[in-house]
């Protein structure tokens, strides 16, 4: 059972007692991500996330390290298109410390100029590390091509030019605007007592003042009217194909039919961005696996559709086996997708997909960290109340709904095709 409370300052608090282990997981979610960024400050949400680990008014810089490790705890954070989040998981006696950390992070981060400057090169290192991976590079280019208006188009890490020129004032101003209790959800899951925990939350967060802010308006992505294509031709050893179809957001009735469609095509991943993609899906009998991997055209196929606030992409990524031409791989992939688009799926495939998703929901709810993630994730993109209903929504999907969704979303005009086409590296000749 989830205990929900909204403090006077607008902070939403979700607490779920789980007494299977003497642990507690605390996540603080901010409804700000890269889609809130304008030109000149792409990457600011992510850089702000980095800066929020560098000391606060009451946590000196030299006491940040080890502040949760002394309880055997782990910490982390991430930024994506709709959200920025911070977490700690530790033994339950660390709860007070975790609440303190997150309240400090919300209200009192320091943004020392030297730290801002030092972090600039760390983030550029992170960006360049990502660019070392051709598949990640292709993903970035594909997304930027698929979206022409919506700010989902730019990478969460930002464009290099912006990272090189953003100032401490840009960072601190963004932090002060969006890091307010009325833009946040605090989630606590674990071996805790909900009423007592709520009192402690109020103690730590209740005095943080709400501040009104105006969210940057953004253009909804207009309907794509024709296939788009992007090719990266760079030195490399392996060819990659990526397809991006505009997909429904989480509150669109088509979301779960598309989720089931993906399970039929590439195997069910589940719905937990934090953990689902760490284990491969059951996909050996999935349509695209059989058509492309078993036939030797591709060494791997990965499908991804995630719950997002606005319509994002359903992405299918393939690695061509050595000697397979990208054109041939693309032709075979599109042929199989066309079969799904025009012929739909069978009741047996629907049952198998639903069963896979049922199992994945069990597997990905195996820890207080994962449960807390899901509550906060869904609250930030829509509502946490979706989370307990996931299984029912999946089991409620019909063949007709999947087939209609396939017809709507898998059409050529809705897709962007990306190639990473390796060329000889003449610099080493």
């Amino acid at each position, binding site marked *: 059972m989830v205990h929900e409370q909204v403090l006077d300052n607008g902070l939403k608090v979700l607490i779920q007692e789980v007494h299977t282990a003497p642990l507690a997981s605390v996540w603080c979610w901010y409804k700000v991500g890269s889609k809130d960024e304008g030109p000149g400050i792409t990457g600011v949400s992510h850089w702000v996330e980095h800066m929020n680990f560098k000391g606060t008014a009451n946590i000196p810089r030299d006491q940040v390290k080890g502040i949760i490790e002394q309880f055997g705890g782990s910490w982390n954070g991430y930024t994506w298109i709709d959200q920025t989040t911070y977490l700690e998981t530790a033994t339950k006696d660390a709860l007070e410390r975790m609440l303190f950390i997150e309240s400090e992070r919300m209200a009192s981060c320091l943004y020392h100029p030297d730290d801002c400057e030092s972090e600039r090169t760390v983030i550029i290192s992170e960006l360049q590390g990502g660019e070392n991976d051709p598949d990640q590079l292709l993903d970035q280019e594909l997304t930027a091509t698929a979206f022409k208006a919506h700010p989902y188009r730019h990478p969460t890490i930002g464009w290099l030019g912006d990272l090189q020129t953003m100032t401490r004032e840009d960072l601190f101003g963004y932090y002060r605007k969006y890091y307010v209790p009325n833009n946040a959800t605090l989630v606590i899951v674990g071996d805790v007592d909900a009423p007592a925990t709520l009192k402690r939350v109020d103690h730590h967060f209740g005095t943080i003042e709400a501040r009104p802010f105006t969210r940057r308006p953004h253009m909804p992505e207009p309907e794509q009217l024709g296939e788009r294509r992007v090719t990266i031709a760079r030195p490399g050893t392996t060819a990659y194909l990526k397809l991006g179809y505009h997909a429904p957001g989480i509150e669109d009735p088509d979301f779960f039919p598309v989720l089931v469609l993906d399970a039929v095509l590439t195997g069910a991943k589940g719905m937990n961005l934090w953990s689902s993609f760490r284990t491969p899906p059951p996909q050996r009998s999935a349509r695209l696996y059989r058509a492309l991997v078993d036939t*030797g055209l591709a060494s791997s196929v990965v499908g991804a559709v995630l719950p997002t606030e606005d319509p994002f992409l359903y992405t299918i990524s393939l690695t061509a086996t050595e000697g397979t031409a990208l054109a041939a791989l693309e032709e075979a992939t599109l042929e199989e997708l066309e079969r799904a688009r025009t012929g739909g799926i069978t009741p047996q495939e629907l049952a198998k997909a639903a069963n896979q998703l049922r199992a994945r929901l069990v597997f990905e709810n195996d820890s207080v960290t994962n449960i807390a993630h899901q509550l906060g994730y869904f609250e930030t993109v829509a509502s946490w109340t979706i989370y307990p209903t996931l299984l029912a929504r999946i089991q409620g999907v019909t063949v007709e709904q999947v087939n209609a969704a396939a017809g709507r979303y898998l059409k050529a005009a809705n897709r962007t095709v990306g190639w990473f086409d390796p060329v000889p590296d003449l610099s080493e000749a």
Partner: protein
Amino acid sequence: MTTTVGRGLTPVREQLPNGAVLIAKESRTTPAVTIHAAFEAGIVFDPPAHGGVAHLVSRMLDRGTDTRSAAQIADDLDSRGVSLSVSVNRHVISLVCNCLAEDFDAILALVADVARNATFPEQELATRRAEVITMIRQDEDNPANMAMEGLLRQLYPDHPYGTRPRGSVESVERIPRAALQAFHRERFAPSTLSLVMVGDVEPGRAIASAAGAFGDWTAPAPAPTALPPVTRPLRRQRLVLPMMNKAQADVAYGFVTILRSDPTYYACNLMNNILGQYSLGGRLGDSIRERQGMAYYCFSALDANIVPGPLTIRAGVNPANVDRAVSSIDAEIDRMAAEGPTDKELTESRQYLIGSMPRTLETNAGIANFLQTAEFFDLGLDYDLRLPGYLQAVTRNAVHDTARQLDSSKAAVAIAGPYDPAAR
């Protein structure tokens, strides 16, 4: 013989007459079970003539048995939402999956069938071989991977620890089906199996089910294999692998260290935590990421094993910062060797390693990993209860003594990426 330990994880262990080890631990946190089967069939057993056999065996194991085709195995797994991960490391091939509790018996039977009766069908071999060749090509395009392979080649020349885990394109192209079958025959036997089952299943029932699946297996134990001796490098080594099309360079730096059974293991483990793991990469992270802003990641890892294992340090840096990053690593190694840890560092790392155990042992998969490691290194069924005491007993001097074994003038360094030493 069945052994049960009181308090702590309290796993139940049984060794069958044919030598197979079965370990079960009940956990009702979720209605699921983790099945983790490990066979002593790792890369160290690759025949010299065919590098990459163990890895290719791991890719082929679940592609057909005496009674099931690859398609049938796929349907059996997929219909239950099970993804069977078959992976290989230096010493073992592991088959790991999560399944719903209701599917435990069926999936366990399938895992047993795959492990015992794999047939390596010819038509599957062509496809899987092509996949592996593509994976090798991807590895060759990955500076982090190339740096690590280069480092291990320097640390372990003429030893399986220094060979490429997947083999080379040339060696994999040549592997005949007979080599896979021979490897499977030799290395997959009840005496090389340790099977761990953790989750929503009563231990007695799990062991009975596993005994039913493996108890009648009579494959002979493999002949003992002697690995070549490991010699510690006596001088500094440096290898540069230019990959000028890349955006970032990867540095891999390291030493040969100790056996897992070495009495100084816990001191060395704590030293490694202080050096390159605690919080955001220990002392190394403090220097190279936090203070100098040179890298998104910089950390160390200790793999003490049944062979003197490596201590490796890795960092991803702008090519303009490679030399400074390597110098900074040298400086931290030298400082640790000269001064050892502070009392505060030792207290913090020790507290962290002990305090993190409940988190590590929260999930079925986490528990299964822990029990497999304890079994592989013969640490005992109550290792989770004794580990805190081992860590508590480590003194500052003991940690310093292990650090004194690290000498930057004898380190091996490998750099891969857009780095041109001639330009500097």
